[in-house]
């Protein structure tokens, strides 16, 4: 409209000039767009330019710089000619998204984190280097190697794992006359009834992800099936319906028996921890990472961590291998990158990392010093005796994880059934394409 009006006010030669002006404007816009693109890539690669050669290694982490700095200092001291160019993004979506963008634009760091959420894309498209022949991989636990292995190649070096179980407030249990932790699922439910009768909230778990108890019960099922449950589902020898339904039925007794409130469908991990810290609940399902926070907030709580008891008396832990270190397949400093990962997985590097994070490290030549409440869990975790479906699934873990969480919330809320839950996972896997 404005152009027409302008046209009517101008001489006949105006269209030619207007075209020139439009051409110049378009050129300016295009130049701006191109310069924006080129400047961003130049900015990202400047620190790893060819001139810097192997005197630099870039590292993209989801641990903060405060956490990683002692490890970086240790590496630079051990390798005086190499400096670490550190960058950080918080886990998980922001980290995954930033790494995606950097990989696509060819500006990803030499070394970065590989995790459950991005491993299938990174390994499947060979965006990271095969580390299986590297000497430092002999120090990595077998469960960690298995997690980041595809078609015989290992793409990540994970130095830690985490475990999850039931955290008990021993004082509240004692108040209800319970002196030992339950050894079977029936005892667990019976203890819940005893606590409830004593006016104590027995058990809580957050509903914002597949819970610790459900994961551990599925771990028992996986063990009963020889550890091949997920492989069999993906190979179409089994289905979620044939393997998960019984376990889901057992697990849903938590709600049908009244041991856990159906309000758990809307609870977050922080809310559950806050209830435990205030002494409002006797038992919670949580991971090893929560212990430090809880002990800081409520130092006088008398707590113990124990595995989830199965119906047949098998005790099992929820857990997973932590994110690993991966080398960019197009690393600009491949030699320095290898040296850096070698240091990160060495006894000295792992010791510094463990001191900063209190993680359950799993490397062969270093035994972590942990809170006594974690001793039993750490033994099982270091032996690789844990299960977490989202990490164990060979493909589509994020799609299936979102579906599993949503279905679990519906089951907790009482608006679904174990059979519908399992069927929904089968349908989701079929639509995603195994």
């Amino acid at each position, binding site marked *: 409209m404005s152009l027409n009006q302008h046209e009517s006010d101008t001489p006949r030669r105006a269209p030619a000039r207007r075209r020139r002006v439009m051409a110049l404007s378009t050129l300016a816009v295009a130049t701006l767009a191109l310069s924006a693109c080129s400047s961003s890539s130049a900015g990202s690669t400047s620190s790893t330019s060819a001139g810097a050669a192997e005197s630099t290694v870039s590292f993209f982490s989801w641990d903060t710089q405060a956490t990683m700095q002692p490890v970086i200092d240790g590496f630079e001291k051990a390798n005086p000619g190499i400096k670490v160019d550190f960058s950080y993004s918080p886990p998980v979506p922001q980290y*995954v998204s930033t790494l995606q963008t950097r990989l696509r634009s060819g500006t990803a760091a030499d070394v970065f984190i590989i995790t459950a959420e991005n491993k299938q894309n990174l390994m499947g498209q060979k965006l990271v280097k095969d580390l299986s022949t590297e000497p430092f991989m002999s120090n990595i636990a077998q469960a960690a190697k298995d997690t980041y292995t595809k078609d015989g190649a290992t793409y990540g070096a994970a130095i830690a794992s985490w475990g999850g179980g039931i955290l008990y407030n021993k004082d509240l249990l004692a108040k209800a006359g319970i002196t030992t932790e339950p050894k079977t699922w029936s005892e667990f439910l019976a203890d819940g009834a005893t606590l409830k009768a004593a006016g104590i909230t027995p058990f809580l778990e957050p509903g914002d992800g597949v819970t610790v108890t459900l994961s551990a019960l599925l771990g028992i099922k996986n063990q009963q099936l020889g550890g091949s449950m997920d492989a069999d589902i993906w190979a179409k020898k089994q289905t979620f319906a044939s393997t998960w339904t019984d376990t889901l039925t057992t697990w849903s007794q938590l709600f049908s028996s009244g041991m856990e409130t159906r309000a758990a469908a809307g609870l977050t991990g922080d809310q559950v921890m806050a209830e435990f810290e205030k002494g409002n609940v006797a038992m919670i399902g949580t991971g090893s990472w929560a212990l430090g926070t809880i002990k800081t907030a409520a130092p006088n709580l008398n707590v113990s961590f124990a595995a989830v008891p199965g119906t047949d008396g098998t005790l099992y832990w929820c857990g997973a291998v932590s994110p690993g270190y991966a080398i960019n397949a197009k690393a600009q400093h491949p030699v320095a990158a290898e040296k850096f990962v070698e240091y990160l997985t060495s006894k000295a590097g792992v010791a510094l990392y463990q001191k900063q994070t209190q993680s359950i490290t799993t490397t062969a030549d270093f035994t972590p010093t942990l809170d006594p409440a974690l001793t039993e869990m750490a033994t099982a975790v270091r032996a690789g005796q844990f299960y977490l479906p989202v990490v164990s699934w060979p493909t589509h873990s994020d799609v299936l994880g979102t579906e599993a969480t*949503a279905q679990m919330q519906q089951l907790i809320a009482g608006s679904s059934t174990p059979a519908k839950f399992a069927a929904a996972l089968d349908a989701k896997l079929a*639509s995603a394409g195994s």
Partner: protein
Amino acid sequence: MALSLSRSAAIPRTAPLGVPRDRRRVTAQGAPWLFLAPIMAIFVVLYAIPLGQSLWFSFTDANGYTTDMHWIGLANYAAAFKDPEMVSALWFTLAYAAITTVAITCLAIPLAVVLNTRFPGRDVVRSVFFFPAVPSIAVLGMVWGFILNPLGSGVLNSALHAVVGIGPVPWLSDPHLAQISVIVVAVWAQTGWHAILYLAYLQSIPSDYYDAATIDGAGRVRMFRSITLPLLTPAITVSQLLLMTGGLKVYDLPFTLTHGGPGFATRTVTQSLIEQGVAQADIGKASALAVLFLLLVGAIILGQMTVSRRLEARYT
């Protein structure tokens, strides 16, 4: 914009006399484009190019990690209609947008009328109602998550237990209650801002109309129906457009309050787009959903604008 362009023809008259006539003419004709260039650059770089890329990605198997992608035709569009999660997200998004638009409009107009009257502490009351618009909606979501904690120790549940003696209400754990909670918080957060918008329009209505109506014996209700409401139709158009577009692309409030749960009860289309595009690295499918959603939002907004314009033409 048209006016400013035609006015630019006057520029040569004030140009220095020493400047050649042709150059002055070029300067005059080029000036509007010079001013338009920055906004055009921003539009092209931030909107047009990404929009074109999304359209292209929607026909491919783009995964976000590499630039290597393959043409797969309409497969992503076909998959979008089969996804029950997406259907659920679409229904909640439409319900959220429609209910918040109607509820906020019904509350904000009477509130604006009240705030337009003289009473002691009026400015403080106006500020109080406007306050929820100041903090980030994500922060409000977290605060309300604390208030609506479904356990007995939650702020609202503790108050209900102390005052009425009823047990904990699963505000964010029951699918229907969670949907209602999200919508109620959204209405609470936005009503004050829209009331201030209506207040600005109310203050532009000449008092003569009310004086004449008073002389004619019209009551308050009649004056509201026959003067205030018709003259507020331009404000209603603006407010409803903002509410509808904001409601259709909502993400932050439901996500911070419920993460889209329980189940898929409070999941929105934008959350599904972000999860599929970023977390699941399925850029192709997410782009197809975005294109479909853009068309749907465009159709809704076009319909709404048409109705609003007709109402404006009729009453103003």
